């Protein structure tokens, strides 16, 4: 029997088992009681009517409570969405480019978007390309690294495992910005700053990605060890177990890690600004757009910033909403396990 079949069988077995477990919950109708007897039973013990007055009172308070909740939630939605509508409105404003004391533009148009791509100062296309490349490369490699570390730490008990985990815990408590200056000097020695800053940033993201193994490890911890053992009996190597059995079961966490890796470069302005060191070409969108808001630029480029913000937010938001389910799974799993 090949390994493929083995793992497939194991998976099938698992699925069957789950289905069986699910079936138990549905009570089969007891054949000893007739339909009338059952309804009689129900009338007497289950659907006992409560005192009328209390029921009505409850209903009224419930309705009031629900109305209040609807009002609160509606207000919240408005408050939460207001800034985003604000950004969108401002991005269509044509009459001026700086800060204004109103939200609705007096003259609508696509001027800011056109400017974003044509103005030599705002190098938006380059920034966008940089960020996209960073996101794609980082997400793939970071996922590989994180899964590797978390799998190794979750499944194996080897000498030095505790030491390694403690090490990562302790060094994780140091603030990340502490090492900015050293990393900059190191990377500039290898010519990976300024124009090449995206590559330097990719290197930094990837190299430190193993530190964030907690969530994936928590996930791997929940996968039953009996799967490994069964495969081991059938002669699978550890690598085959990882790639053919565990990995197919880990789709949610893989997608979560990819999503996180992809989204990180879009919001990172600290590292990006520092590594690019005032070189326009080396910015990512965050650093670039933030640069448009510096004191000397804000009056000319505020609406351009809004347009850029909209263009960045749209793809990210769509991607995020599509994969929302996995994000929720990852975040809540991580929160519960710590």
């Amino acid at each position: 029997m090949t390994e493929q079949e083995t793992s497939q069988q194991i998976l099938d077995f698992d699925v069957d088992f789950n289905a069986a477990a699910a079936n138990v919950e549905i009570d089969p109708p007891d054949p000893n009681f007739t339909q009338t007897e059952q309804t009689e039973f129900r009338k007497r013990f289950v659907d006992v009517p409560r005192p009328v007055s209390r029921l009505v009172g409850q209903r009224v308070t419930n309705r009031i409570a629900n109305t209040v909740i609807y009002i609160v939630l509606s207000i919240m939605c408005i408050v939460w969405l207001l800034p985003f509508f604000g950004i969108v409105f401002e991005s269509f404003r044509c009459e001026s480019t700086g800060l204004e004391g109103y939200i609705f533009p007096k003259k609508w148009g696509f001027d800011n978007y056109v400017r974003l791509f044509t103005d030599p100062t705002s190098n938006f296309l380059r920034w966008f390309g940089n960020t996209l490349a960073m996101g794609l490369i980082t997400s793939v490699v970071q996922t590989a690294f994180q899964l590797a570390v978390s799998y190794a730490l979750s499944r194996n008990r080897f000498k030095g495992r505790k030491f390694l985990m403690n090490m990562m815990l302790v060094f994780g408590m140091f603030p990340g910005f502490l090492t900015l200056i050293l990393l900059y000097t190191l990377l500039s020695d290898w010519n990976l700053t300024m124009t090449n800053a995206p590559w330097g940033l990719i290197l930094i993201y990837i190299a430190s990605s193993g530190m964030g193994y907690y969530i994936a490890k928590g996930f791997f911890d929940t996968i039953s060890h009996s799967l490994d053992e069964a495969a081991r009996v059938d002669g699978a190597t550890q690598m085959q177990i990882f790639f053919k059995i565990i990995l197919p079961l880990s789709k949610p966490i893989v997608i979560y890690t990819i999503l996180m890796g992809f989204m990180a470069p879009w919001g990172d302005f600290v590292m990006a600004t520092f590594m690019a060191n005032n070189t326009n070409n080396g910015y990512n969108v965050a650093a670039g757009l933030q640069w448009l808001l510096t004191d000397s630029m804000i009056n000319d480029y505020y609406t351009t910033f809004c347009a850029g913000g909209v263009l960045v937010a749209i793809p990210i938001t769509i991607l995020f909403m599509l994969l929302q389910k996995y994000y929720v799974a990852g975040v809540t799993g991580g929160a519960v396990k710590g």
Partner: protein
Amino acid sequence: MKKKKAPDFVTVELRDGSEVNNEEVMLFKMNGVSYLACAPQSQPDEEGREIVLCRRQKRSVNVDELPVGKFPDGGMFWQQLPCGEEQDAVFAEFCRRYEQEAQEKRRKELKAAEYLKLNRWQRFVYKLKAFFCAIPRWFVALFKKIGRFFKNLGLKIADNAVDLWRTFRYGSWSTRVSFLVMGFGNFAHGQWLRGLLFLLMQGAFITYMVLSGAHWLSLFGTLGKVATVEVYDEVLDITIVQHVDNSFKILLYGILTIFFIFAFAYTWRLNVKQCRICDEITRSGKKVKSAKDDLKSIVDDQFHKTLLSLPVFGIVMFTILPIIFMILVAFTNYDYLHDGYNNLFTWVGLENFNSILTFGSGLSVAFGEILAWTLIWAFFATFSNYFLGMFVAMMINKKGIKIKKFWRTILVMTIAIPQFISLLYVSNLFADNGVVNAYLIRWHIIDSPIHFWTDGTLAKIMVLAVNIWVGIPYLMLITTGILMNIPDDLYESSKIDGANGFQQFAKITLPYMLFVTGPYLLNSFISNINNFNVIYLLSEGGPARPDWGQVGGYIAGDTTILITWLFGITTGAEANYKMASVIGILIFVVVSVLSLIVFTIMPSNRREDDFS
């Protein structure tokens, strides 16, 4: 005197050849000699179990008598006591201690019974009190631990030395050669792959040390002697400034060299050990692992090492090494004046820590206030988000509320949009000439703009408020699932008992949530201490407080937290790297102490059945 914690697993070989392997072991000292008392499990009768007493032997002087390989109980040797006076004395001492122990145990049990009677608040106070009472003991334990660490280190080195000596004395000739030429033994046993790797390691190490390692190491103590020399160029007829030493590089490569030396020492030891193992295997007539087996083990037995190698290498090079570098920088005078290139920097000891921690100096005032605000900020940011987020989740979860998915989706959508966009926009929204002020003036609610970001107190309130705006969707997401997991019958039964909504929340929901999300709360507290984005994007740490003075050309402000201070000092016009790393270390201290405290008195330590 308290009982020494017995090792989890003790294996003692007794004179008659039987082995004691048992958890009921007591270690104690009398007249400076260590004794061990245990009841061998081989004797079935619980009551009449004979106590076996052993005395710790001094390390055997004659190396040849040592058993090969396993040393029982981490290198300690125990010998069963013969009958006689000594045995009687030791037995009496043992009985006394045993009785003492039993009493202590009874006393503790009494405490536990009392503890169960307390209500939740009293329990919390009790835990807090116990925690602070335990602090002196911690320090004692810490020093003891450090002492034990060095003792164990010494023992380990001694063990290794003994093992090395034995390996050399009894090893085959190829093993002896591999003391000098690494990997030779492996070659002799046909393990060419391992041999090659060892040999390569040795070659690389020697080449590195000769070419540059020795140079960096020799300058490590002073971090360079000469920064620049002026050389007369005859061709151009001018003097040219030449850079000689670079403190920055000396420090960096010095650390790297030390890392490398340790790695090499470990590899060398591994090489000798493998030769010994090969010798033993050959002697017993079996076959050693071939290179093919080694290659196979990369994807099988040793697969975890394959997985870990690259990520851990990355972490060591880009996280651990830089952090160690920056920790060492805190003990130098590295700043924009002493950049290590034009002007060398050097070791200054604890001077930087003195300047920030000395009571009354300008810097320490700033540090104290910023630290206080950081903690206040982290506390309110964490708990306001936590309770409000939970509240929103409960509102959406409530039975009878329709289009639940719609409300959630809208809130979740705000997570997706990169923070720098939304926060920068919000920051400008509330600027002095921003939209909010403009509308308020137009509607004649105020006459002059409210200084949201330039008034100290208002700025603090604003960052907290906007942080709630940022945080609620996250908390809503996290708590929704957990809230749904609370069994409905708990609520039903409490309703029958006449509990109102608030009581239900306080007695059922909150304890359950605290229990489940305890670790998360700690994590979010720590991440709020380091919550750079919200503070920096909204107020940039302002309004500035010139009375605190500047560090590194950066003037901290009312909303500055430690992490933005660190950033400002690092990137300021007169970058002051030494102070930045001192602050980084202090952040680490704060974070680790807090984690320690919280882990000791965390609600998750409570038992789950407290909730019913």
